[in-house]
């Protein structure tokens, strides 16, 4: 089989399998082969479940042979962020603390020794039910804390457009998986930009749905008032199909919304003429790289050529988003991560004389630096004496940020803005400066705090210059709650005329 079938869109690929023009087993074999040949240099996957994937693929083929109806993702290989529980398959959340203790002769940090969940996350179960073939667990910043994938406890993921650069994070492995053609789709999670930013930096499409639209049951919790699962794909229609499969009410998630799921994929052909697009001036402020701004402004002009109207708008509390986010997210994380104690699963420090020492040593030895930093910061902002000054105040500012969006969506249908102020940055550039890393999340955090849906779709890459190759740039589209279909319609229309359409990085290996 021609391996370039893996580069087809997800609807096309599922169609080929459904019509029997190619078998799910052939597709999966080609996918696993590509991962073997390409991923050594990229680090997108922490673990690959080859046997289970082939078995799932054969089950799809047998179902077809029996004349049974196949699901909308029949035979489509998908990468799963390692923050999502996959039944009996290693799940690490990028952390050593979720590794079972090593036996003699075993490597200290091998993600294959990850926690084996007794159940599937709801989104994982839904993918399986739709006929998807789960090929492996993708690399990420530890507990989804980071914007460069360098906080993975195992190895960094590399950007296929330039392997000396980060793919972004925290869902970096999922973004690389799709950008490098290792699998046509992947799931990630977005707490403050962890889907949109890596999508932008790797030239893929990534969607952060409305808070509550997609179940988080089985997602390793980071900041529960912000976490949301969403898809990555190479094109909007493919991402829309994935979103359609994973969205919808789940009785296992208390925050899951009951609203009916819209037809995201059908929306991709919809006319966008007459849409009012808000352009927030705060998103083009000082700090954005000129080449990124140029590319995004060209995309805005493209939206006008599609019949949309641009409206300058203001989101005046944008500048407080980073501070608000880092108070609230760290507070929630300090609470959520208290469950890692060396008792019920994962790593355990040996030789502790009492329970307190067992907890403290297990956690001290196995959490990475960024995770420890955020737990301590979260503990501080929640502590007596500082609670009102930091935590409660940040919750009030969050209300102001939400109101900015409510206000602006009375005037416009969608917001269009950059995703990241810069293109993919060199590995190592920001590791010693956490604040600089945080500040670069300024364009993605507000939509997370407001709980509104947002996506990243590629616009023109920057031109190559001074030894720096041409690198992807993302256009961010933000909508009112539950208007993912509108975002898909506009993103698909833009994609049809985008100069980035169809461009892929050159990756060596079949």
């Amino acid at each position, binding site marked *: 089989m021609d391996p370039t079938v893996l580069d087809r869109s997800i609807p096309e690929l599922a169609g080929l399998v459904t019509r029997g023009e190619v078998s799910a087993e052939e597709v999966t074999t080609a996918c696993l082969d590509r991962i073997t040949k390409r991923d050594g240099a990229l680090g997108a996957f922490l673990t690959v479940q080859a046997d289970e994937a082939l078995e799932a693929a054969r089950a799809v083929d047998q179902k077809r042979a029996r004349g049974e109806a196949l699901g909308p993702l029949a035979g489509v290989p998908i990468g799963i962020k390692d923050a999502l529980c996959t039944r009996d398959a290693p799940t690490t959340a990028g952390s050593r603390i979720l590794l*079972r203790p090593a036996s003699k002769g075993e490597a200290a940090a091998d993600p294959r020794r990850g*926690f*084996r969940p*007794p159940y599937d996350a709801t989104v994982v179960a839904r993918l399986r039910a739709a006929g998807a073939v789960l090929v492996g667990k993708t690399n990420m910043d530890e507990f989804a804390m980071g914007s460069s994938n360098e906080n993975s406890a195992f190895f960094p993921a590399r950007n296929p457009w330039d392997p000396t650069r980060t793919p972004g994070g925290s869902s970096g492995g999922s973004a690389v998986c799709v950008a490098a053609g290792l699998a046509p789709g992947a799931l990630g999670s977005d707490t403050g930009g962890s889907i949109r930013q890596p999508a932008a930096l790797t030239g893929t499409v990534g969607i952060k749905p*409305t*808070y*509550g639209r997609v179940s988080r049951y089985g997602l390793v919790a980071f900041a529960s*008032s912000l976490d949301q699962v969403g898809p990555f794909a190479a094109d909007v229609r493919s991402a829309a199909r994935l979103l359609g499969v994973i969205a919808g009410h789940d*009785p*296992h998630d208390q925050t*899951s*919304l*009951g*609203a009916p799921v819209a037809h995201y994929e059908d929306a991709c052909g919809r006319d966008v003429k007459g849409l009012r697009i808000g352009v927030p001036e705060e998103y083009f402020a000082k700090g954005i790289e000129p080449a990124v701004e140029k590319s995004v402004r060209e995309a805005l002009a493209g939206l006008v050529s599609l019949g949309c109207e641009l409206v300058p708008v203001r989101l005046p509390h944008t*500048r*407080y988003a980073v*501070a*608000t986010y*880092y*108070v609230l997210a760290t507070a929630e994380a*300090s609470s959520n991560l*208290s469950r890692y*104690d060396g*008792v*019920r*699963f*994962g790593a*355990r420090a040996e030789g*502790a*004389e009492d*329970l307190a*020492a067992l*907890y*403290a040593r297990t*956690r*001290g030895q196995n959490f990475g630096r960024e995770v*420890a*930093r955020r*737990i*301590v*910061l*979260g503990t*501080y902002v929640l*502590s007596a*004496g*500082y609670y009102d*000054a*930091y935590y*409660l*105040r*940040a919750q*009030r*500012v*969050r*209300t102001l940020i*939400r109101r900015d969006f409510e206000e602006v969506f009375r005037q416009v249908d969608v917001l269009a803005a950059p995703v990241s102020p810069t293109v993919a940055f060199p590995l190592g550039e920001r590791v010693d400066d*956490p*604040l600089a890393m*945080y500040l670069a999340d300024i364009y993605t955090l507000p939509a997370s705090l407001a*709980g509104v849906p947002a996506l990243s779709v590629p616009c023109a890459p920057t031109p190559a210059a001074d030894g720096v190759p041409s690198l992807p740039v993302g256009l961010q589209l933000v909508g009112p709650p539950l208007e993912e279909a509108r975002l898909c319609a506009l993103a698909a229309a833009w994609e049809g005329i985008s100069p980035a359409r169809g461009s892929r990085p050159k990756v060596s290996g079949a």
Partner: protein
Amino acid sequence: MPPAPEGPATLAEDEVRSLARLANLDLPDAEIQRLTGDLGRILAYVRQLEELDVTGIEPTLHVEIERAPLRADEPHESLPHEIALREAPRTSMEGFAVPGFVEED
């Protein structure tokens, strides 16, 4: 201008050490030192939230797009005992094994 929160803008190393203890994190001194510097810089940045007058503004604990439906309160099967224990680093007498935590005379 709202009143500034009580307490220093930066943290002392001892304060960070006691926060780490509260968070059940046993960290080496070099890490405590590094954390003290990092947290000081981050908190100095976070203090810009004090510029805003938030009097009378309701806090957002959770964005509520709509009321999330409640599930029926019905009994259902839970994890089988052996599966619940499967991932525990140490078990004893069909339970999770931990060091003693009750003082015995």
